[in-house]
């Protein structure tokens, strides 16, 4: 019941904030949003899952109620956690209160709606990461888009309509593709499944339950389903070349929305890739390892090159997400303990670091009202604390050791380099690793131009240090990044435990 309570409370909180007056909606939302975080810490402390939830492991906080029966398939309310989903739940509940705090300064209209939608989104995100029934999962998955659409479309920048619609249509079309792919898989499973529960489907596929369906052989069906789902999730991640909605959405989205978009929403894509493509259809993933690794490398290098070309601070951070998600894809496709585990760890690490970067850029923007690199210089002189944390965050993004990003990236690299299942693994890994040079290039130049040197910014007002409630979430995030960087096993231990069954799903012919 605890997961129901968590999700339910968040929905209620959303409703409550929606009804609250604008004047104190922000404070109320922050106060309420700390409850799910405390709840997720409680989950963490009582966490007792073993193995992977989809491959027959012991599921923590499992709760299952039959809901409806659809054509011989039970649809259930089925939620639970394992070592892959718990870190993402903690990440979500941790980021939301901080994102809400970061909204206090920039959001100055229709606050109760804004904060209500933020909490509504959180509730659905928690649903995505806990649901173990496909139907339930898909409802949450789609429902995340709605608040996001409004948050960008109402509180966004000048081109918010374009960005919101592009985001919505693009990711929805992708969802449709993914949905078709998955459903055809379930049809082909025929009588070997009695429900849409993900563990059952995973088991059925592993046991060879796929049958010829409408003249499509099981092997071909699995491959088609894999490709359809891969394409669908790739948009969400996003992976090159289906990434172009992301920079537009980020540039137009207000800071707190960007924080959640980069911090959590992108991880929906990688989480789903891991759960569906790489856990359910490991053979297909393995067969396509070379092209997928190539896409991963292209995402890393190409995303980083795009970031290098940007002049808008937020666009720089946005494109670097494309690059970072390329690492995650590489980690997934190599099917090793450190590869898959590192990819999952990197989801959390990137969530924290990109959240910090967007937040810090937002705090600077609150003061400058411009994000263009050429418009400002020497901001360190006026906002020393904010800039100090921004610099620390940027080094985190560059993969500075003892910060979370290094741990994630290093795990992926060390897991990928000698991976037996991926041909040319050392070459792919070494190429992807070159991203760590490019990321240093663009972040260091952007910082040098905007933060250092003699102060220059044309405003008719004085720029001073940011208010406490803007800086505090930055400091909290930075602390979390360092703690996870020094002690990655806080999460990595349980992640490994849940990742191992996925890895073992692939037999390697050396």
């Amino acid at each position: 019941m605890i997961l129901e309570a968590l999700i339910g409370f968040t929905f209620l909180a959303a409703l409550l904030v929606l009804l609250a007056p604008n004047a104190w909606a922000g404070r109320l939302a922050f106060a309420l949003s700390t409850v799910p975080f405390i709840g997720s810490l409680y989950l963490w402390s009582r966490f007792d899952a073993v193995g992977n939830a989809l491959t027959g492991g012991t599921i923590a906080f499992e709760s299952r109620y039959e809901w409806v029966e659809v054509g011989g398939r039970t649809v259930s309310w089925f939620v639970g956690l394992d070592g892959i989903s718990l870190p993402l739940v903690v990440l979500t509940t941790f980021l939301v209160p901080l994102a809400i705090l970061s909204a206090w300064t920039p959001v100055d209209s229709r606050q109760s709606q804004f904060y209500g939608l933020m909490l509504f989104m959180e509730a659905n995100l928690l649903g995505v990461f806990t649901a173990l029934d496909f139907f339930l999962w898909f409802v949450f998955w789609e429902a995340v888009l709605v608040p996001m659409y409004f948050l960008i479309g109402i509180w966004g920048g000048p081109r918010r309509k374009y960005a919101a619609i592009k985001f919505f249509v693009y990711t929805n079309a992708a969802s449709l593709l993914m949905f078709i792919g998955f459903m055809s898989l379930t049809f082909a499973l025929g009588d070997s499944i009695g429900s849409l529960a993900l563990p059952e489907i995973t088991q059925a596929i592993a046991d060879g339950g796929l049958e010829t369906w409408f003249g499509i052989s099981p092997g071909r069906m699995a491959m088609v389903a894999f490709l359809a789902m891969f394409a669908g999730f790739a948009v969400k991640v996003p992976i090159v070349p289906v990434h172009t909605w992301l920079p537009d959405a980020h540039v137009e989205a207000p800071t707190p929305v960007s924080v959640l978009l980069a911090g959590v929403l992108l991880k929906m894509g990688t989480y789903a890739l891991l759960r569906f493509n790489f856990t359910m259809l490991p053979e297909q993933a393995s067969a396509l390892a070379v092209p997928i690794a190539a896409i991963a490398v292209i995402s890393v290098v190409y995303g980083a090159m795009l970031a290098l070309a940007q002049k808008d601070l937020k666009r720089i951070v946005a494109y670097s997400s494309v690059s970072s998600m390329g690492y995650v894809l590489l980690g997934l496709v190599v099917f090793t303990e450190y590869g898959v585990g590192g990819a999952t760890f990197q989801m959390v690490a990137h969530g924290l670091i990109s959240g910090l970067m967007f937040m810090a850029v937002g705090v600077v923007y609150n003061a400058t009202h411009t994000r263009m690199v050429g418009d400002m210089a020497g901001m360190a002189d006026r906002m020393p604390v904010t800039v100090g944390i921004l610099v620390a965050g940027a080094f985190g993004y560059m993969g500075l050791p003892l910060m979370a990003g290094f741990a994630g990236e290093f795990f992926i690299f060390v897991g990928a380099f000698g991976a037996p299942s991926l041909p040319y693994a050392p070459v792919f890994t070494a190429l992807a690793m070159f991203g760590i040079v490019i990321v240093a290039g663009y972040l260091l130049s952007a910082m040098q131009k905007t933060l250092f040197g003699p102060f220059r910014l044309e405003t008719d007002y004085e720029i001073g240090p940011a208010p406490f409630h803007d800086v505090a979430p930055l400091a909290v995030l930075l602390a979390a990044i360092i703690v996870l960087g020094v002690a990655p096993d806080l999460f990595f231990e349980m992640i490994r435990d849940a990742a191992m069954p996925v890895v073992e799903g692939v037999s390697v012919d050396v």
Partner: protein
Amino acid sequence: MVDAFAYVPAVVLLPFFSFLVALGAGKYLPKGGAFGGIAATAGSFLLSLWIATAVAGGRAYNETLYTWAAGDQFELTFGALIDPLSALMLVIVTLVALLVHVFSLGYMNDEGETGLPRYYAGLGLFTASMLGFVVADNLLMAFMFFELVGLCSYLLIGFHFREPGPPSAAKKAFLVTRFGDYFFLVGVVAVFATFGTAAFAGEGSFPALAEAALAGSGDVWTPGGLELQTWLTVVGLLVLGGVVGKSAQFPLHTWLPDAMEGPTPVSALIHAATMVAAGVYLVARMYGFYALTPTTLAVIAFIGGFTALFAATMGVVKDELKQVLAYSTISQYGYMMLALGAGGYVAAVFHLTTHAFFKALLFLGAGSVIIAMHHNEDMWDMGGLKSRMPVTYYTFLAGSLALAGIFPFAGFWSKDEILYEALVHGLNEPLLLGGYVMGLLAVPVTAFYTFRMVFLTFHGEPRTDLAADPEPVRWNVKGPLTVLGSLAVVTGFINMVPVQKVLGLEGIDYLHRWLDNEWGGIEGLSSHHYADLGPYSSGYIAGGEVPTVLVGAAVSLGLALAGLGLAWRLYNVTSPTEHTAKLGGIKDVLYNNYYLDELQVWIAYRTEDIAGGADTFDQGIIDGVVNGVSSVSLLGGSRVRRIQTGLVTQYAAMLTLGLIALLVLLGVNGGWFL
């Protein structure tokens, strides 16, 4: 009895605490947190001495202290490895760091700098990172602290962030070394993939596994069926990338002269004991691995010899005091690389030690001059400071004599041993011999630029009013200078190999005996073992070992004296002139550092061009397709536009429709409607 080794973590953590204190409370503390830093480094220094005593007492330490990630595939850990090498390095680093802290009181506090808590926090973190690197017991931990050292150099080089120069130099330092570290990181990952461990010492360490595998016992992974020796060479060269970056070897040396933008005490720390030293130390630390691959050794030797000569030539024409010292650093680390490549493990460590002291001395001496000259660094504005600041002059002179390799100062002994090793091993190895010749040619050049610097700064008549009436410096400047000045004179005596060989006095080569585990150490990490592994055999000229020693020493000393003499003739006059016109066309090349900076800037711009092209492609083609598809989508262009007027209710409707479609699909499949 309390175990000294229990305090190894404290050596690292004390400066780290001073970082935290300075960062958190520095502005409330006297002197901006300087005393915390002094206390911490003094504590670390004393503990390091104690640890060195324990090693001298026949003991060593190799323990895993913290598990960072406990995977089945690899276990990633932090630990401490204390053997004669790391114990010696601990003493050097903590001593130099302590003196730099004290000196900073004079250079930063007395000069009224602002941002002192940030400064002392940076120094503390810098020292802590370097110490963590020194005690690292595996390659991953070494890499991690190596990177932190890079961060600290960024923070301290860019200390004066309100000016345009320092942030740019800081960026360059981090970026250029990051380029080298990329290869290092690939190397670390490759070591894990190959051996399953990155430990430096012990039975299961990667050098030991590599040795066993080469000997045919034991099996290690190689990619794509590559031959083992080839693969080990590749891995060695990959790790070397990081070394070339941090130790400022050609072609990644360009960051170092720019790094002079940092405060002078920071330069002393970077050049003598921390960042630049880290690269060479790393090769020494895993020398058991490098000794296995002759190709790597030859490459190291050749890069080293080339860099030694190459950097020295640029030092000849520089006008600013710190610039001359910067190029001398690059050149001197070239010598250490030459030594390592030539199988002269002890010689390299010896030069690392002597150089740490005399280069710290020269930088702090330069700092003292800079205080006196009110932060004017141009040597042509100086002159005649000899009588006006005698303590600085005589200590600086001692450091210069050591740098130039003049008998009996510290640098003579260590440089002579490097050249000797390169010569005797190089007689049968053409690449190595090339390194030796370049190293030898660099000797007179080094002596020349060093004494050009000394004469221009201290001799003759003051050329400006500033030089005629320099600002006096206090004890906090003179104290560190005196300590280092004495060390620059005496450090050479720890390893008088030529004297031993010529006079037949046994046992005065203390450093050799120290690094050969004669007092204590770890099996497999001794100079003796490395010599056994190495590919080199010795050849002699002039009919034997003793004549070779004598001829080698005489030639290098003679060349050094020649360089010194030339500098004396040209610059030790009342009013010296540039004389650079005599160099003709070479002068411009040297002034512009062989145009390598331009080359790197060119590469950076071309990369930006490619990025710009990628951006145009992304916006035009990839996103163009997306927008194109959406405008010719099912509903037709005009309707899409109507939707885009922002009637969000329509979207809610679309979403609902989607969900209904989903249910219908489910239903059809399940026979709901039948």
